[in-house]
């Protein structure tokens, strides 16, 4: 590399990957990946969310997974934890729903009522 600018470019390219490990996140999306969730398409929902994070460049958001939440008819379910806000649970989140929730709730902070399952702890 010839100069500092090139160095910074490499840094910015790889940094996103490293941010997964630094543990500083504002928003955490938990996808329920129980057997029922997977059967209902939770993996696709999860992949959609991960792609969206990359596309919209929101590195302060992470996706993690959890086991079955127990409301199988509501699967795929996701829980949304935003710093200083009440946790929100959405049900029946297919790929389309995931996009909508991402657009409205994660980017703009508006709860998407039609998928809302519960609020608070």
């Amino acid at each position, binding site marked *: 590399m010839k100069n500092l600018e090139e*160095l910074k470019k490499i840094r910015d390219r790889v940094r996103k990957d490293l941010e997964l490990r630094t543990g500083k996140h504002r928003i955490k999306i938990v996808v329920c*990946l129980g057997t029922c969730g997977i059967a209902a398409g939770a993996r696709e929902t999860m992949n959609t969310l991960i792609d969206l994070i990359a596309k919209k460049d929101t590195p302060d958001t992470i*996706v993690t997974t959890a086991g079955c939440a127990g409301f199988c008819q509501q699967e795929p379910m996701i829980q949304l934890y935003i710093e200083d806000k009440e946790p929100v649970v959405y049900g029946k989140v297919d790929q389309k729903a995931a996009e909508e929730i991402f657009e409205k709730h994660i980017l703009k902070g508006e709860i998407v009522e039609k998928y809302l399952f519960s609020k608070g702890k």
Partner: protein
Amino acid sequence: MYNLRAHVLLCYGGACISSNAGSVKETMEKAIAKAGLQNEVDVVTTGCMGTCELGPIIVIYPEGVFYQKVKPEDTEEIVQEHLLKGRVVKRLFYKKPKTEEMVEMFNNIDFFKLQRKIALRNCGIINPLEIEEYIAADGYMALGKVLTEMTPQQVIEEIKKSGLRGRGGAGFPTGLKWQFTAASPGKQKYVCCNADEGDPGAFMDRSILEGDPHSVMEAMMICGYAIGADQGYIYVRAEYPLAVERLSIAIEQAKKNELLGKNILGTDFNFDIEIRMGAGAFVCGEETALMRSIEGKRGEPRPKPPYPAQKGLFECPTVLNNVETFANIPFIILNGAGDFASVGTEKSRGTKVFALAGDINNTGLIEVPIGMPLGTIIYDIGGGIPNNKKLKAVQIGGPSGGCIPADHLNVKVDYESLQELGAIMGSGGLIVMDEDTCMVDISRYFMEFIQEESCGKCTPCREGTRIMLNILERICQGKGKMEDLDTLEELSRQIKQTSLCGLGQTAPNPILATLRYFRDEYIEHIRDKKCRAGVCAELVYSPCSNECPASVNVPGYLAYTKEGNFQKALEIHLKNNPFPAVCGRVCPHQCEAKCRRNDLDSAVSIRSVKRFMADSIDGYLKCFPEKQNSNGMKVAVIGSGPSGLSNAYFLTILGYEVTVFESEAKAGGMLTYAIPSYRLPKNIVKKEIQALSLYGVKIKTNTKIGKDITIDELRKQGFKAFYVAVGAGDSIMPPIEGIDGNNRVMSGLDFLYKINNNEKIFVGQEIVVIGGGNTAIDAARTARRMGADVTIVYRRTREEMPAEIEEIKEAENEGIKIQLLQNIKSVKSNSNNKLAVEFVNMRLAEFDKSGRRRPVEIETSSFVKEVSLLILAIGQKPSLDDLFDKELVKLNRDGTICCSSHKGETMSEDIFAGGDVVTGPSTVVEAIGQAQRAAEAIDKYLSGGQEEYPWNIMDAIEVKFDPEEEPVDYERAKNILLPVEKRDSYMEVEKTWDRVTACKEADRCLRCEFKKEEEGI
């Protein structure tokens, strides 16, 4: 391109690799591919995460779930459960030592929580083999910053402002070093990195080189820019092949990316780095020797000045810093000197990396703010000492350092505070030593080390250390003389003053530190031929006997019991201890903690075998040793507790005529009046005291010395010597209102005395016992047997309770509540004719002299509880009343008798003392041991002494034993306890084994004494 959703970080530090991290990586990658997750999940190998004891380690991000001791066969489950289904694999979680509580998240483990990572900021996070990962973590940005925005002088100023001091040992300010070198005239200058980490017990440099090599290289370049050097050398030990390998890869990658070489980042700065391998010479850690070694010469140190800053490598001005020092530099440049300086103490800024090793639960690598108390490092981060052993000392600073004893746990770990205690920060090896470490042997070990590593150039270091080593070896073999200690100190002084380099100048430090804090142990080796840790082979008969305060020949009576020869077994026991049936019930059996069988499965149940052996024989008379010829001299023993009676017994063996005076109606002291009969039935005590009477010990009860008869009167009656063993029968009461004269408040001893004396006590329904010792537990379990609800309140935590663990457990089994971290504050009588007791919650603060955390009240946390009887058992002290005139003996501040020797001599030549009245409340077997030694002192006073006393001779064991044969393979037999629901009376809780169980258990003994006999030592 795929977007990764998870990273599986696998620690690839040296320790984890040797714990098979390689296979874990392989199977993990396969399992991920099999699950089709290779595009979602990445496996990243990182440098050392620090928790070496727990390896191989996996941390899964973004959640930060921490899995420990992962085996290749576990990886499938991690992938299937965690990565695929989002269910964490609990069985691989970290478990807290002692509580066994499971911890899921990386950041919730105390080991990590209390750390602050600067030098290790990337270790365990990035893959050291990928330069891009380092760059992503702002790598080489600091270099970019200094090359484009700062002048060399500004860089030096920034480092100076940060207060960074050399992390290799002496703590010289790094900025100043750079300044001096920059100011030195000369065209060619060098930057050297000292990675010849030789201090045993320190491995932080290795971990940094293996886990984050680029950070060191970047720092060397920054230094090169600041001082005007274009060449760097990293001098690394040949014993660190992995570090050399990763460093070489890092240098290659940096060259490929044009971060090393000419015109770095488009500026006119050039820099190159070369690795030089050491070749196994400890002295090369010394800077002048190291530079000679790089020059290709013998690594002998040379005198300073000139300092390396003026004339270093190849006679050119040179900066030499160690690995950890360099690893801090990029952080300082990027985050500013102020950020760095805000961590640590006034004089020692920043953090320090420590290697935790030795007898500690969490071994590994940690980085903490300088100035953290040692106790916090050992207990909160290190998780304390394994196997319920006691901390003895912490060795810090390697062979140039010293050891800090357990009573200084509150010391702040910084350069100055450690120096005050005779230790040094050194490179940061913290080796924790438990009670099984012999401090004389450790001194010998360090001297041997120095002896071998001395380069031989200076005579004091070469010859002086050899003489010191010889002396220490002699002491360890029991052939030392008291004068040796002065010689060691004198030699230490001389070697320190006259050696050329740091190695010699600091060589005596470990010896001086142990002489300062553990002089007692040296003296025991020399005077008593005893190694209390059981390490020095020549002085140890067997670990169990060595540990026994009465030095009972444990392998002896176990061997005869195994054969069914109970009479012979008892004979062996009685020679050293006339209370086998009592000790078979109440002895805390320290011997079992030292039993070598612990390493195999679990200790021999020595106490229970002893109990069976003693119970199997009714009359001891035929088993007592033959009395020596009567010498007609009369000795008076005051107090008929275990110490008094034993002393009378030992003197009787030696031919004296002994009378024991007891103020109470019955003999036995605490055995009769304190220990409850569910633990020690009175007929057992009676049996052993009667045996002593028959043997010839005269006992006069209801006779109080000082009231019924005085010492002077006894002297006139012809008593030539006195052994005072009146125990510690006075209870210590807390200084709070409402206790005095309140008939619903009593001391633990008082309560037990009344019960044992069959006096009637009203206890009511709610009893609270304050205290955590055996008296508290005895009182509580006794009260429980009277049908009351009993609560024990103790001001510290369970770990600090002095009572025996088994007793605490049984108390809880019997339904006694234990409230920890609480204390009483005040006591009032209320209208219901009960007590209104005010309690307060406590918390543990800093460490005190006892090596425990001091309990302090939590303000405004008090509460009131109604109690029918309050029993206080917080401590005991001797009650000497009007025993004798004040001029006869000197007392210590705590009321115990001050003895001029360990044999119980007092300031009056005919008065000796032993047992609780000297030690404060202690155990039966300790009291017996003291009685032995006092008997020797009395004999010496009256008859000039004998060469060897019967109890110091270990008789040959004539039981066939084949050391080649495999030991019997069954587990330790269990004790038989009365079911809890039947424990409503004072019936004994534990049952004596049957013959088969006892003989089989005795056969588990490994006969550790055996080898020695064969060799004839």
